[in-house]
């Protein structure tokens, strides 16, 4: 059943032009375009364009997939009534959730290899096995954190239009304050302040450092890790205690009846 659900989840992703444009097309094209403009520049840590922006654009794809194809998709299915019909079938909620997580990991991993491949072809990016494995492990951890954050944020939406506007705006905000365009120190002061409160910016900084074997356990690293952990923890609390429509939808019979449990605990966060 899991494989069947996963197959159709992936199929549906490929048929959503909106998701494809913002996840698989825009980031690699921007990566190439920016490379044409700033390919010869040197960045923090004496890194080349490819060393700095390859991990950045992998993260941007991950963000796009997780926020659009995972988070926004939840809102769409909830508000159009699809979710209602699905939960009336006997498919285990864990299967739906697991399929959605696997879908995101598979698509983001494809994005990872796509950008890495472009980097190798266009910018002579080198392949260092140990760094690659370490970076991929970090990527999976960041993926997990983004899945939790996305799920919590989108659980608060009751209208698809609201979620759509939010998605488009947040994509732009993350692009500019996450360090995906120009380096944040070159940006105006207010952008730098926003970046400090943007968990994706901290993820980006960490990922660039890990990717290039430059991670140092200094105050900046601890601050970034601390902020990501904090936002993830708050998101988990929102998912656990938030009185979202999605959660109440799965709350079959109240736990205070002392029997039957709470369907919300099985937290179906996908279709």
């Amino acid at each position, binding site marked *: 059943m899991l494989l069947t659900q996963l197959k159709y989840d992936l199929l549906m992703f490929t048929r959503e032009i909106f998701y494809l444009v913002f996840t698989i097309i825009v980031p690699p094209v921007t990566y190439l375009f920016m490379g044409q403009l700033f390919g010869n520049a040197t960045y923090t840590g004496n890194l080349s364009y490819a060393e700095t922006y390859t991990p950045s654009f992998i993260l941007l794809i991950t963000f796009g997939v997780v926020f659009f194809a995972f988070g926004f998709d939840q809102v769409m299915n909830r508000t159009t009534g699809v979710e209602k019909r699905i939960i009336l079938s006997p498919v*285990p909620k864990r299967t739906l959730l697991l399929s959605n997580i696997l879908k995101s990991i598979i698509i983001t991993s494809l994005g990872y290899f796509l950008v890495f491949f472009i980097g190798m072809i266009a910018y002579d990016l080198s392949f260092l096995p140990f760094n690659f494995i370490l970076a991929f492990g970090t990527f999976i951890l960041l993926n997990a954190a983004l899945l939790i954050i996305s799920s919590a944020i989108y659980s608060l939406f009751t209208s698809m239009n609201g979620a759509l506007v939010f998605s488009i705006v947040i994509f732009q905000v993350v692009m500019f304050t996450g360090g995906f365009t120009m380096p944040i120190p070159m940006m105006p002061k207010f952008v730098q302040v926003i970046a400090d409160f943007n968990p994706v910016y901290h993820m980006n900084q960490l990922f660039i450092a890990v990717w290039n074997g430059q991670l140092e356990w200094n105050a900046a690293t601890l601050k970034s890790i601390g902020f990501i952990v904090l936002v993830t923890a708050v998101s988990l609390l929102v998912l656990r205690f938030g009185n979202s429509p999605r959660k109440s939808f799965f709350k*079959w019979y109240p736990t205070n009846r002392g*029997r039957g*449990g709470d369907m919300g605990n099985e937290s179906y966060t996908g279709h």
Partner: protein
Amino acid sequence: MKIVRVSNLQKAYGGNNVLRGIDFTANAGEIIGVIGKNGAGKSTFLEILMTLNPYDNGIVAVLGSELNTLTANQIEQIRRDISVVLQPTQFYKTLKVVELLKLFKAYYNSPVDIEQIIFDFKLQPHRKKYFDKLSGGWKQIVSLAIAFLSEPKLLILDEPTTGLDPHMRNMLWTYISEYNKRTGGTVILTTHNMDEVELYCDKVMLLNNGVTEVFDSTEGILSNGYKSINDFYLSKVSI
């Protein structure tokens, strides 16, 4: 055999008491129409039977199990024997008809042959169409085909023929009646079309202000001197 047994069912949304004491039974093989004006609580009642909505007080036993006592896993088991057609019908919009049937076949672990279902429901011309691109009538037919995939013991339909043209309505009712005769499955539905109730339903439950005002066989109601179920409805329900 009793498929559904409901006693003194009560349900409120905040301070709004939608159901104020419903009594109802459905036996195997019966087709029962639930009627009442908009806001009478018909959909809330059906959603409780579907295991979609909790209730405040009373007894609701579906297929021998009282819903309020079931664990999440037991609810999942009950759902294997219940199928529904919701109003409005929605499925994944970027899946094609044949893909939806295959997906739901997997959900229900159904032995039913997809090609047979496509043939039975005359879906051949639509099998490669996206669900979202179908007309309202064909969406309902696909929804019913999916509902039949599991060969359910209980079929719950919320206004299944609303917005359908007479041909589509006729087609839908043919499938429902055939299913009922072939499998002995129970059908509970809401509708505003009193002709359909008179033609196809064995029993009628009239909900008024959240209580069961009348629950009788169609013949029983007509034998009380009403010219039709429509006549009965108009005389019992005020605007």
